């Protein structure tokens, strides 16, 4: 991958806090233009990794490049990197508008355009009405949106988002997810989150961390085996066999692109692995469902791959 195509590069990155190793020898590359997730349970080291990317924490060992520079090279990265810190409070006494204008000025936006940039950023998160409100008087959801607005202020090339929907009600969380999805393709977005469904929905790729180590990374389809595997949930009481309403494993194995078929009668789940070179997941789903329906099997759900959640559970 060329240097320009890599937005973030971590090489053997380690962070220790005294005797405790929070992140150990993590190496990772995030391609430009991707939406990328940092995944892991509590204590996995994702916020520490995120904080090193944002320049908040200094690595103990290893190297870290953000858009080709050290994260502390503020002048070279000015207005090219936006960050949503997870637990940073907005300055309570500042009005929302003046706070954003101040940050725009620091991003080297000319004074004549700083207000416009701030207005636009606030409008994008549906917060235009809060311009004159003090940051301290905003609700949690409103404050999160203002923080999001400052992260995307000036259309940076790389945006780092730490738990963007944590603690928000479902509606606001959904709106923020839509906002982030709307920004995909216009910037490289790195999201650290516990919410695996959210990450699966937003991200093109992810890194899974556990106890400070990188346990898996890659494109989402690779991580979830979405291009290699189809899972079909069947109705309660369904058994293996050739009778009507039963799952004929042999028949499924006979399908041309299928590599293997497993049927877990307890979990009521059929796992069909296939050769991705011979067919895509959609074709396989069609063939498998056709065979099952012909045998009058009751189907309750279909997924491509094993799902990010299952993958994370397997790995951590």
């Amino acid at each position, binding site marked *: 991958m060329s240097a320009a195509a890599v937005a973030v590069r971590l090489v053997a990155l380690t962070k220790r806090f005294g005797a405790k190793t929070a992140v150990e020898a993590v190496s990772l590359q995030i391609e430009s233009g991707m939406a990328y997730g940092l995944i892991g349970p509590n204590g996995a080291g994702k916020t520490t990794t995120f904080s090193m990317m944002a320049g*908040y924490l200094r690595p103990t060992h290893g190297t870290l490049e953000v858009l080709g520079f050290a994260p502390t090279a*503020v*002048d070279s990265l*000015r207005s090219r*990197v*936006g960050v949503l*810190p997870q637990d940073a409070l907005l*300055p309570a006494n500042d009005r929302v508008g003046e706070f954003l204008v101040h940050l725009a000025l*620091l991003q080297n936006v000319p004074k004549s355009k700083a207000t416009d940039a701030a207005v636009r950023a606030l409008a994008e998160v549906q917060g235009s009405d809060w311009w004159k409100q003090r940051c301290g008087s905003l609700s949690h959801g409103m404050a999160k949106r203002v923080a999001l607005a400052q992260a995307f202020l000036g259309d940076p090339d790389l945006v780092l988002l730490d738990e963007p929907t944590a603690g928000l009600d479902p509606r606001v969380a959904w709106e923020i997810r839509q906002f982030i999805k709307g920004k995909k393709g216009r910037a490289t977005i790195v999201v650290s989150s516990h919410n695996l469904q959210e990450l699966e929905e937003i991200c093109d790729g992810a890194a899974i961390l556990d106890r400070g180590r990188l346990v898996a990374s890659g494109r989402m389809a690779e991580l979830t085996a979405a291009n290699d595997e189809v899972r079909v949930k069947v109705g309660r009481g369904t058994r293996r066999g050739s009778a009507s309403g039963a799952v004929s494993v042999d028949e499924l194995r006979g399908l041309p692109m299928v590599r293997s078929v497993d049927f877990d009668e307890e979990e009521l789940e059929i796992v069909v692995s296939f050769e991705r070179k011979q067919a895509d997941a959609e074709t396989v789903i069609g063939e498998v469902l056709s065979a099952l329906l012909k045998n009058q099997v009751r189907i309750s759900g279909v997924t491509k791959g094993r799902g990010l959640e299952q993958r994370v559970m397997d790995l951590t």
Partner: protein
Amino acid sequence: MSPLAEIRIIAFRELRRSVRSAKGIALSALTLLGAFVASLASVWVEGADRVRSNAASTQAYIELKRAIIEKATGDATLAAFLAPIPTSLLLFVKITVWFSPLLVALFGFDAISGELQHREVRFWTVRSRRASYFLAKLAGLWALVGLVTLALNLLAGTVALARGYVTVGELFAWGLRFWLVTFAIAGAWCAIATFISSCVKTPILALLATFGAFFVSWICGAGGFIARQRESIAGATGLPSQQMGWYEYLYPNAYDTLLMSSEPVRVWLAVGTLAGFVVVFAVAGTLLFQRRDV
């Protein structure tokens, strides 16, 4: 963007924030109220002095003051230089200098520690060099203390003017110089306070540490003062030595006499040493802040 531009943007915001915050308003109001009382007291002292000294003329009163200042400082040249200055202004500058560390500590303890505690600092460190952030906080605090002490001096000057103890010319000449004395000394205190604030994440700890550091510095100054007074009692001249002990130089307020001197060398020595305070703590603070996790 140049570091200076970053410092300017952050320092102006810091000043605006401090002036508008509840703490800033309350402290400024209390300080001005205290200053008003202090200026009335200074004027009262001057009036009482004039009556008690029973000075037949202004010249006699000045001569009396010269003798008092010489006895206090051991410096005949300085005494001759300061004696014609209105007593109320002299007293007030002493009061302002004495209280400036308190003002600095209360205004500045949370300048950085407050933003470290709630991680507000993270919005700035991705947009400005850490050194600029630190120096802007220092500049903002210094400017704030400078503005407050300017207001104090204007208030005291107005009271003295109303009583007829100073002329408008004296007020501009001496008032401005005395404010500059306070401003220069406050710079050293501001540098120490900002340094401590950048080292501590909890504002209350930063406040205690600042008071602690200022107290240690005051002990150094008080120790030197006592030593010189003892010397004057034991010595033949009856005047304390002009020479300060080395530890007195650790107390920024001790430079007020040098800054008010008629000899440019002494003034510049004091300005240089106070600038040294600012540089040492600014450089140390900047280096530490650049290396710390936020």
